[in-house]
């Protein structure tokens, strides 16, 4: 099974959810939604610009957030192009972020730098 890791910064939570649902979602007979794919999608939420500050256990200032909504995905069995390359699913590439570190989130046992799409 070929796996890849992608990091994405969407304009909003709503946009991210639209993209995630476009990967494939169905409803069971009780109305519960479930994905029809085997990718692992992790919503990291709004980008954190400044961490919360505590002194002596007391909150001094809350976290400060940016506007980008971050999502990490462990892609499983993406479609392989005729030339053997693999690309982001439709609609995701524009929001892809490539970084030189492992970032603020990882998938257990997997290195983003080795598997980034």
């Amino acid at each position, binding site marked *: *099974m070929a*796996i890849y890791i992608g990091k994405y910064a969407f304009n909003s939570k709503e946009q991210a959810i639209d993209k995630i649902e476009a990967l494939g979602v169905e409803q*069971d007979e*009780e109305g*519960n939604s*479930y994905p029809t794919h*085997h*990718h*692992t999608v*992790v919503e*990291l*939420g709004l980008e*954190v610009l400044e*961490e*919360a500050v*505590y002194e*002596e*256990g007391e*909150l001094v200032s*809350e*976290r400060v*957030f940016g506007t980008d909504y971050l999502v*990490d995905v*462990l892609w*499983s069995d993406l479609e392989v192009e005729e030339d053997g390359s693999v690309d982001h699913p439709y609609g995701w590439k524009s929001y892809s972020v490539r970084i030189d570190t*492992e*970032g*603020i*989130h*990882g*998938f*257990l*046992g*997997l290195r983003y730098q080795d598997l980034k799409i």
Partner: protein
Amino acid sequence: MALKYLYVPSGYKAGKAYGVLPNVSNADLAFVRGSSGTRINADGLIQTEVTDVPRLDYTDGSCPTLLTEPASTNLLHNSGWEGGGALPTDWSYGNSDGTSTSVISTRGTAINAYRFQSDSARHYFTRSTTSVSGTTYTLSIYVESITGSNQFNDIFYRIGGGGTDVFKKDGVVVTQSETVVAGSFYSITFVSDAVESIQFRVGLGVISSVSGDVTISQPQLETLAYRTSFMISEEGAIATRSADTGAISGDLSSYINSSEGVLEIKAKSIVSNPVQDLRITLSDGTADNRISLVWGTGSSTMTIVMDANGSDVFDGGTSGFKNLTGSFTKTNMNTFKIKWKSGDIQVKHNDSTIVLSETDTFTMLGLDKLSFDNATGIRNFQGNVQYIKVYDSATDF
């Protein structure tokens, strides 16, 4: 009149959990997990298994179980408490009037534990995150050793995020004044009703000054209503384990008698009231012919689902399921035997018979697969399986 299929957790490799009987590759269960995951090995130590490798878990003792879990993320940085010294990297002191020392964990060298000592003082670590209103969170820690009689809210607490705390010891609800013992997981579950910082406190004197000596490891914060296996996050990052999925046998049509037989399963679910049904199913690969054992969404509900030749089986063909009479502690290891034969459907729970239907008739066709789902790839079983057996005659009940 014989045992025709047997799965007992034993041999495995990436993408496969070997079946025992029949001795053919079709008895093996396929297996998928995108990321690594941890388990407790036969020596009682935390061991990481890489992508697609099934996890044989020895948490409950000497008998291994096949562990399957949903995806989850540990929202705490450096959960293995690397960095040495009195304070692990990425963690902060709430108060530091006592001492903390990095020690070798009883769960092995994959992680560090910390020993906290305090004499009428407060000494604890903190990590914080920001809550999302409406989200369920579970914080958990493992107590490796303790001297004295400290209580839950002496060693472990959270501040912020709103909602009401449910305190648990090894998954069982207790009060926050529960006396702490070694060798147990303590967790706090709550549904946030605010967007604000949550501070996770672990150590000694997390609310007020205490005396004590406690060694703790495996801090974890998840957006689930229960604790899952430990996820070791790196310094500066949180970490996700992918779901265990795709557990399904090959073609067993030569071994399974569709018209009658017994399906026996010894297993426990990961939680007593799952968000969705958790199922193990014998089927033809579709929902048209299947027999499912269901750990239902009710706190003690167990259900049998049966469809045959595309039709519901129960209540004269008007219902596809029947709840089992009784109350079941689903997070305990239970044995269920399901007998299917037209006009004779019964269940045994730990050797006590529960009559389901002695009148409903059916024509079951093509049972040839065992899967950890509802036969169509959803409602994946999450928990621990000790064995699964299939017999080819109703007389084996």
